[in-house]
């Protein structure tokens, strides 16, 4: 088990006329090796939730344990926590700041107090992991790069911390189709190589269905449903309550159901749909 959240609630500006409840009794367990997709409308509490996981937001009520860091304790080891949980924010390229790619990616490791040699080694590894050529980009200003490359540099800055859990908030937002595909395959590669546990917030239901093995559906500060993509995307009640759309594959399966065609096995990926249609046809 890598993350255990119990009965987490959070209110913005408590005790003022602007008080707004963002989370209301959220409990979830994330295991090492999970590829968790977090879905839900804007304002459903997704971002507030993930910001708790590396203590960007201070715990108000409930409990959070990330490996052996217990956030309910008086002085939790935040340095250790932030080395364990890497956070890639929305449009992370806006947070690039240093003169060269080398320095920007090395900023995190430097703050960990690592040796020059170790920093250099980590930077090189991270830059290459995100699919950039270290020799070509290391001494360039990150601001000279293309949009997709900038985003990769920003992700490299997080990877250089070697987090065991990597959290990405809408990593493909605003990218062109090629950029989206590249970033998704990068995330999958990172899962295999450096960060075994991935948590991703996404509005792209098709991408969640294709890539995640676990889905948490947020609505009004609560987890409405959690389970495999199959369980969640066929939970019509929970989805309707959360006012969420389903992946195109599930839409097609629903349309077919209306016409009296029941596909076996509740397909959620394109591959599963093709297979289910073939089986139905051969019946």
């Amino acid at each position, binding site marked *: 088990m890598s993350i255990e959240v119990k009965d987490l609630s959070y209110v913005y500006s408590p005790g003022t006329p602007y008080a707004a409840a963002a989370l209301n009794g959220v409990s979830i367990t994330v295991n090492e090796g999970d590829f968790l997709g977090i879905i839900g409308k*804007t304002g459903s509490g997704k971002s507030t939730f993930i910001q708790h996981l590396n203590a960007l937001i201070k715990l108000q009520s409930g409990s959070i344990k990330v490996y052996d860091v217990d956030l309910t304790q008086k002085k939790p080891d935040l340095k250790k926590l932030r080395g364990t949980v890497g956070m890639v924010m929305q449009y992370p390229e806006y947070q690039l700041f240093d003169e060269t790619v080398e320095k920007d990616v090395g900023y995190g490791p430097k703050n960990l107090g690592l040796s020059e040699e170790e920093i250099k080694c980590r930077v090189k590894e991270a830059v290459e992991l995100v699919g950039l050529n270290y020799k070509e980009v290391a001494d360039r200003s990150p601001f000279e790069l*293309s949009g997709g490359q900038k985003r990769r540099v920003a992700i490299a800055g997080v990877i250089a911390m070697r987090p065991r859990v990597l959290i990405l908030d809408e990593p493909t937002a605003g*990218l*062109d*189709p090629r950029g989206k595909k590249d970033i998704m395959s990068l995330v999958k590669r990172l899962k295999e190589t450096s960060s075994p546990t991935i948590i991703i917030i996404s509005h792209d239901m098709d991408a969640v269905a294709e890539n995640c093995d676990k889905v948490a559906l947020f609505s009004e500060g609560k987890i409405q449903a959690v389970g495999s993509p199959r369980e969640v995307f066929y939970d019509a009640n929970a989805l309707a309550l959360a006012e969420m759309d389903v992946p195109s594959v599930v839409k*097609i399966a629903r*349309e077919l159901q*209306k*016409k009296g065609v029941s596909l076996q096995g509740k397909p959620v990926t394109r591959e599963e749909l093709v297979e289910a249609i073939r089986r139905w*046809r051969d019946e």
Partner: protein
Amino acid sequence: MAIKFEKVTYEYPAEDNAVVAVKNVDLEIEDGSFVCICGENGSGKSTLAKLMNGLLQPTSGVVTVDGKTTATEEEEELFAIRQKVGMVFQNPDNQMIASIIEDEIAFGPENLGVPREEIGERIEYALSAVGMTEYRHNTPYKLSGGQKQRIAIAAVLAMRPEVLVLDESTAMLDPKGRAEVLKVAHELNDQGITIVLITHFMEEATQADRVVVMSEGRVVMDGTPEEIFRDRASIEKYDLELPITDAIAADLLQAGLPLEDKIYSEKTLAEAICRLK
């Protein structure tokens, strides 16, 4: 013809080597049409959009709006062009200037010197056109992304434009916000406003009358969504993707199912699948 490009080239000035963003483009946007412009990042789409109302002026070639060139030094002529061709950009937060929505909408007409009573009418029209009438006296900061973009569209509508250019205006929105903005765009088009929609979402392109594909500054494809998305080789070549339903249809075809090779929605694809047995 609402907008006409004749052999238009645009180079971004740079000290060492100029970047040619748009190369020798000939393009006509017809009155009342709904045109989608696609293409990978850096293909010149946004530059093309900014050339449409004189925010940028061509390095060579001519862009005309209703027959008038955008390459004019006369401020009044330029204002007239910008009033006709309104633009909404990607980030809703960067486009809001007023703290109350009706002031936001009134900003454009006030600058045009529109009389007070008429400004009131225009605010009413613009807000009702985007379905935001009840928010007239609210602040824009608490709105969702989709609502903010609808306000940005309303602010343009208050100028009574003939053409609305949406430059990736749906890119930062969630699916619901995107659907809201798209619905408004189609409604405005039904009322006769020409829509130019720049997008990376192929599902949005399938709903246009016409799709223009840019690559490396040139127009490389131009046709109906049907024509564009059936040309699978070019779609791949220009780093676009098939709308997901068509990708699924392609998977089914490849699996040997005798599906007609055309453009599908979820509903029509389900109908076609039913006919397979």
